[in-house]
């Protein structure tokens, strides 16, 4: 669906619920004035009236079109303001933009997902979608890292996933507290524990640039082919339409040619890890 006919005009949406995920992360549940659908991995531009706009990948199920959720880390001008907003407030949304995950390539495969920090937001939407097509997949292993146990998002959802057949969740934190019983260390330590049939597997990486970089390098070491590693790239963005030039990454405009790329597609482009 294209936004309102005019590509630049946001679709007004009501904020109906704010969920505190961690001290720096909140999920915003939005009800757009019109049905709004997206494919998993695509992103939207969220407008805070008169203040600014920022790109986010919805964290809700792509199978739902009457409401959508974005999970937002507080990190600067627009996101700080979002964190002060209350149910009843209005936001604008434009999109959906870009190329999402090509799920047909996941069929009959084992899926390894590597996520960190707010990279879990897009992954959650992907997981909703993978659950819906679970009969076509062999298994799904999620490796998720965060700084501290407090920073782990979607706590109830993790349990739900662990209870879902074919789905497995491994977690690590950099700095544990006394109650933490899972792994300690950066997220790549979890890869030592996974048992994947690599020749029949694809990998998805989403998270902060450093994590994406070291995660990808580790996956290559493990033997994942370059075109079986899917990355969700983050760049400065303004229009989302492949016009403003802000998201240029070599010959690609990330907003339109991505944000999901295989490592093979982007490996020769400049500044892929920023």
């Amino acid at each position, binding site marked *: 669906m294209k936004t309102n006919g005019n590509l630049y005009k946001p679709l007004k949406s009501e904020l109906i619920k704010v969920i505190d995920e961690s001290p720096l992360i909140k999920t915003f549940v939005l009800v757009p004035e019109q049905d709004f659908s997206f494919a998993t991995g695509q992103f939207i531009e969220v407008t805070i*009236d008169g203040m600014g706009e920022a790109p986010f990948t919805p964290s809700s199920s792509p199978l739902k079109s009457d409401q959508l959720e974005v999970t937002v880390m507080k990190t600067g001008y627009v996101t700080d303001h979002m964190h002060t907003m209350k149910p009843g407030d209005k936001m604008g949304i434009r999109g959906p933009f870009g190329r999402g995950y090509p799920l047909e390539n996941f069929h009959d495969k084992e899926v390894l997902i590597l996520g960190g920090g707010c990279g879990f937001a897009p992954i959650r939407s992907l997981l909703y979608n993978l659950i819906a097509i679970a009969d076509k997949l062999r298994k799904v292993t999620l490796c998720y890292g965060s700084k501290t146990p407090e920073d782990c998002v979607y706590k109830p959802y993790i349990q739900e996933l662990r209870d879902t057949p074919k789905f497995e969740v491994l977690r690590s934190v950099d700095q544990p507290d006394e109650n933490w019983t899972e792994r300690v260390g950066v997220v790549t330590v979890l890869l030592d524990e996974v048992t994947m049939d690599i020749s029949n597997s694809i990998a998805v990486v989403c998270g902060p640039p450093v994590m994406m970089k070291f995660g990808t390098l580790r996956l290559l070491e493990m033997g994942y082919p370059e075109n079986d590693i899917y990355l969700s790239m983050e760049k400065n963005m303004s229009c989302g339409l492949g016009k403003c030039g802000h998201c240029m990454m070599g010959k690609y405009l990330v907003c339109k040619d991505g944000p999901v790329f295989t490592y093979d597609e982007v490996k020769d482009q400049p500044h892929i890890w920023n």
Partner: protein
Amino acid sequence: MNRVAIPKREWDERLIHLLSSFDVFAPVENEFSSDYLKLDEEAISHIVYNKPKPVTPLKNFFLPVKENVTIEGIPTKPVAIIGTPNCDVMALLFLDQIYLDNEYPDPAYGKRRENSTLLSTDCLSIQEHCHCTSYGIEPKGNESSDISLALIEDQVILSVFSKKGEKFIEAMGIYVTLTPEKSLLDRLHELQENVKEQLLERNKGLPDYKQTGKLVSTAADPIWEKYASDCVSCGACSAICPTCSCFLLIDKPGFEKIRQLDTCQYPGFERVAGGEDALHALSERFRNRYMCKYVWKPQKYEQKACTGCGRCIETCIGQINKNELFIELSN
């Protein structure tokens, strides 16, 4: 293609009549150069013909420096732009690839494009920094515009290429039977060839568009640092460039958005949350503009991202001359 010739005096009279149904723009000479002016009766006699580029690039007719893109307000009166050199028309074709792509055609740009008739001009003289021929662009009008136009021996020769061009000729009340004399066309051809030779001669030694990409992508850091040391990030090179069209959306209350032309030459263009900025160093930004025009855009688009108009050289307050840079790279 249809060719028509009419005496200059008659052309001027017909232009006056046209003003009631068209907004007509054409370059008019000022103290230092020539630039587009919206014509009134008085200005018609001051139009300059057959001259290289006006100061303002053609893009600004279609992408204003600043505009509200969330309100609908594109005027519907037809526009005619007279006297655009071919380099600028080629630059517009380049912008069409971005702004009129299949997926997200830009409404305002599209409407203006539809609404405008382009009358390109043959350049019958050259300016100091013109180097279109080095990049495979001819200094004369062609079918990429609606009509091309040349003034010689007091005759205006019009070559009509498109339906829109035909409509324009009709609106002017010009009879298509007024075919130009062969001797006049021969004379025009001679002048065109002469200009081409002058351009080639002046730009001898300048690498062509097939070589520029390789030269830019393999150039070592010191050369970028050297040239960038005279750059003050003013962004004039991009503002004046007919193919630079990056922008920023600025929010206004009421969910309105202003599209303002922007450039990678300004700090923060690629800054992301958390403060990381791949183009933080000025020399990186400077290099980025060259990579964009000569390496990345050519991999993505068919039309050329630099037309060799030379405006960026003329405008730079640091007196940075990209042609000197290319010659240095090729040595």
